[in-house]
């Protein structure tokens, strides 16, 4: 089932001579259960793609579909509603609202959507348990959490409730490599459990966790790689 579909998407900043083509004619499909990594040097349009996918930014050409809905057809209010119900973001750091506890942060989209506090909390606790945080940690404030824990909360939030699409922008950038690994493993597991993930990274090792890697250069998708069917043969070659 296709969760995210980019069809000929382009994004131009400015006009005339000053026009900057941040993204050109990008096609991309992500199905449920799939984790796709986007790689490319800085300025290649990775973040633009991510912003377009979540409706934070609007394409100048082409269209973005999230779970079958064309984003361009939505007004600001309904875009916000879409982000509450369908799309979750995980950024590099400072993902959490400092004045809300971990559980409240995780249930933020639900609360914004009008879910009752009790129900939101129950859902959040379940979601946090899935990412390995217990009730005690759930009631801590962001500044009492480690960086890895904070990112776990962010992932739990990104996939809370009915949300099926997680858009992660360098989610391990601020973490040490072991903790980063854990976070990616978690993301991988969540995708294996049925979520669709789009991971922006410049780190090949992180992209290694993806099912597919998309390379971006100067706003264009230049190549994409899926793993070979049989892994065993590779090992021979590495000898």
């Amino acid at each position: 089932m296709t969760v995210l579909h980019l069809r000929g998407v382009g994004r131009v900043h400015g006009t005339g001579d000053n026009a900057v083509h941040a993204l050109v004619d990008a096609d991309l499909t992500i199905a449920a259960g799939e984790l796709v990594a986007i790689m490319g040097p800085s300025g290649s349009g990775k973040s633009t793609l991510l912003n377009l996918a979540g409706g934070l930014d609007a394409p100048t050409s082409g269209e973005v579909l999230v779970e079958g809905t064309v984003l361009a057809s939505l007004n600001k209010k309904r875009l916000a509603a879409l982000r509450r119900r369908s799309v979750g973001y995980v950024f590099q750091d400072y993902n959490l609202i400092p004045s809300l506890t971990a559980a409240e942060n995780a249930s933020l989209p639900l609360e914004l959507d009008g879910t009752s506090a009790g129900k939101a909390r129950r859902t959040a606790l379940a979601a946090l348990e899935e990412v390995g945080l217990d009730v005690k940690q759930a009631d801590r404030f962001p500044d009492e959490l480690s960086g890895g824990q904070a990112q776990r909360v962010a992932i739990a939030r990104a996939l809370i409730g009915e949300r099926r699409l997680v858009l992660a922008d360098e989610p391990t950038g601020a973490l040490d490599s072991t903790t980063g690994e854990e976070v990616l493993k978690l993301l991988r597991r969540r995708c294996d459990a049925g979520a669709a993930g789009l991971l922006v990274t410049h780190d090949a090792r992180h992209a290694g966790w993806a099912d597919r890697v998309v390379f971006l250069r100067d706003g264009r998708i230049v190549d994409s790689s899926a793993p070979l069917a049989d892994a065993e043969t590779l090992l021979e070659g590495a000898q």
Partner: protein
Amino acid sequence: MFAGLRLSLRIARREALRYKGRSALSIALLGLPLLGVSIGATAYDTITLSEEETARQHLGENDAFVESVLPGESLEQLTWYDQWPMYDAPDDFAVEEGEAIPEPPGKEAVLAALPEGSRIAPFTLYPDGVEGIKIETPSGVGEIGALGYDLDDELYERAGLEYVEGSAPQDGEVALSSAAAEYLELGVGDELAVQGEEGERSLTVGAVVELPWFLNGRYAIGEDFAAPYGGWLVDVPGEFTYEQALPLNEMGMTAWATSLVLDPPPSAVDPAAYTMQMDEAMFTVYGLIVVVVVMEVVLLAGPAFAISARRRTREFALMSANGASPAQIRNTVLAGGVLFGLIAAAAAVVLGILAVLVGTPLLEGMYGHRSAGLRFLPLLQTGLVALAIVTGLLSALAAALSASRVNVIAALMGRTPGRKGSKKLLFLGLGLVAVAVAAGIGGVVLWSLPLMALAIVAGQLGLVACTPAILSGMAALGRWLPLAPRMALREAGRNRGSAAPAIAAVLGVVAAGTAFAMVVTADSVRSEQSTSHELAQGSLSLSLYAASDEMTAAQWEAARAEADPVLHRHLEDLEVVELPLYTGWQACGVKEEDPGQDAECTWTVTRPEEHRCPYWEAIGDGSDEATVRAAVEDARKDPVCNEGQEDTGQYTDGVPATTDRQIVANYTELEGEELDDAVALLKAGGVLVSDPLAITDEGTVVLERSLTVWDESGSEVTSEPVTLELPAMAVAGHLLGTSELFLSPAAAEQMELVSSLWQREYLLKTSTEVDASVVEAIKAELGDDVLDGTVWTDVWVTDYTDPFTRYLVLAVTGLCALIALGATAVSTGLIIAEQRQDMTTLGAVGAAPTLRKRFAMWQTVMIALFGAGLGTLAGVVGYALLREALNNPLKFRYPFETLYGWELPWASIGITVLAVPVVAAIGALVFTRARLPSERRMT
């Protein structure tokens, strides 16, 4: 929707707790004005008694107070609600002159008019208004009221009389009111020395008492004293009724009974007919004040919200990424405003009530009566809470709007938002200023207070909106400054989002303070200019006033002689110089010719024909507005039209007439040759006048006499004017008092004036340093009167200055400066906190740690200077508007009114423009930590 609000409030609450200092400040800014109102409202409601409570406080368990007002006549009492009943007197009522006023009904007569079993006791509502007794005070001789009550009568205690000390006085004992006891420094068992006609006698103080409605009154109660005139405390079996009041009315008595306050007879007149309604203009003025105060509070508290919202930009972007709609983000910031408003209001109300609770004794002392318990106008306090919420919301509004428009992508990337909108904001600001000017002019022309309010609000908001543009303009000038001020200026220009609200806060306070100070200063200058001077500033004088008509010269002399020793005791090297005063009353020979008549003889200084202002002829008898306006316009251009309001309505009373050089000098403030000329002229029988244009080419002045005579039937007879030409000299300015004349005795005689009938004035020359305490001591010893009450005395130092105004202006300025200082400090602190990273960079390139201090200092100076400068500008512009409004009704009048001028309160301006930045800078130097953040990390 509701769930969203709950979330917003939760975030707001946690934010408030996270940044306690900033929250406390915002709450204080929002709450302080409210605290004032809350204290005022609570104090007012606590101390104000209802009609019923007033009646109960005075009457206690007794039924009524009855008082003889028209002895021997019958009256119809119209109102029953308070202690001053209105009544109708019979039509033919008149007291013939010389006829003895009938005695009020005695105890038996009053009792006879009341039902069987009634009790009455003499009583008065003015214990210090009754005939007093002279007593010895710690500092001399004084007088207190004396009430002839027999305190054994339980009616007094039932009325609420309370024994603070001791019990009902026995034979030869008196009770003192607590205020009198304190004044005389006496307690129970002490002796009170009373001076009577038959010499001094001593009375023992048997009790110290208090009447709940007259806490500050000084009086003594003793059986021996005279019972107060015609008033009775009444206790009837059962309730006092209208039917019982009627026979008293028949006897010329009014009744004040609790039962009738509660349930007035049907014939009673509605009290509303006699109470003053607050007129609409006053209502609008109060509205205007509320608008202005809310505006200032918004400007003050707004920056805290704006800066906090800026710091939370990423947070809002995150919320947006998680699906918060712009409205939800706006609500999150607004919730902070509501929360702070609520806390501020709650704190203000609670503190206000507590303050009144603690301060009730003080309040009772001030008002002189007990309160009926703590009350706090619940409706008004609720209104206050609502106002606080509105203020909080308004303060947070700008921040909320900008937060909801946050550029999510830029914020998430950690980029500072661009400088877009500065131009738009500038146009908005200029537009607002234009609206303000239009509304201001319209408000003045149409005399519409709502328009003026709009002008104030729009003007200040406009200036605030222009601030960023002004800042960026100024930032360009920074190139030639040293590093720290250059960075500060550039930062202010770059971080307009933070600097502008800070400047706005200072601007708001300073503008209001400046406008206020200017109005008050101009008003005091105005009143100073129109004050007539008599004796020179600082002169000490003794005035004697006759209590009755017929005073002989010998009596005046005796009165002075009585005062003399007291004066000598307090003043060394005393020289008493009489200032002879003449009057036109009973003068011009009328009294001598026919003693039955009353006469007023007025001499007016006239101008020679060529010096007369054509205004009076121009308007003729007609007085339609256009003619008057045109005539006034013409008069403004005509040099001979220089008469002011104070030049009209001359009285020929209390006119000084002497050739004594000392007096002439003191009175006219002339010196040297001019003084010699003046004295010579007076010796030659001339007069001094205050109008230079009245002097003819021959050096004389023409005085015109008008004589009004009332014959025995009281009707008026005016005789033809008579003129008199005398040598004259002009003393410019308003130095000759209200009569604008200074005569020689010879001239006074020619004018047929007589020595003042009611007043003698003596200039007291002494080597003693005279201050308030000396005057106080003389007054205390002299008492209010001499010669057995036939002559009242007054000792005073001539003082034309108005220290109250000066102190008021300084106090208001000081307060404004303090608030401005606070606003500067807080805003700067917030901005500095925002620039931590720059500081780290600076530390990394090897900047000295003190750079941070210097940077903070310059940042502060920048904000304070901009705020104070723009605020003063706004204040001056605001005053210009106010001045127009104030002058408008005064402009087209002749003789001219003194208009509100451009008197700049330099002290105030100095304090705000110079002292505030300097103090703020020093504060920044002292309180900023020198260590750069990067260095702190290393330790």
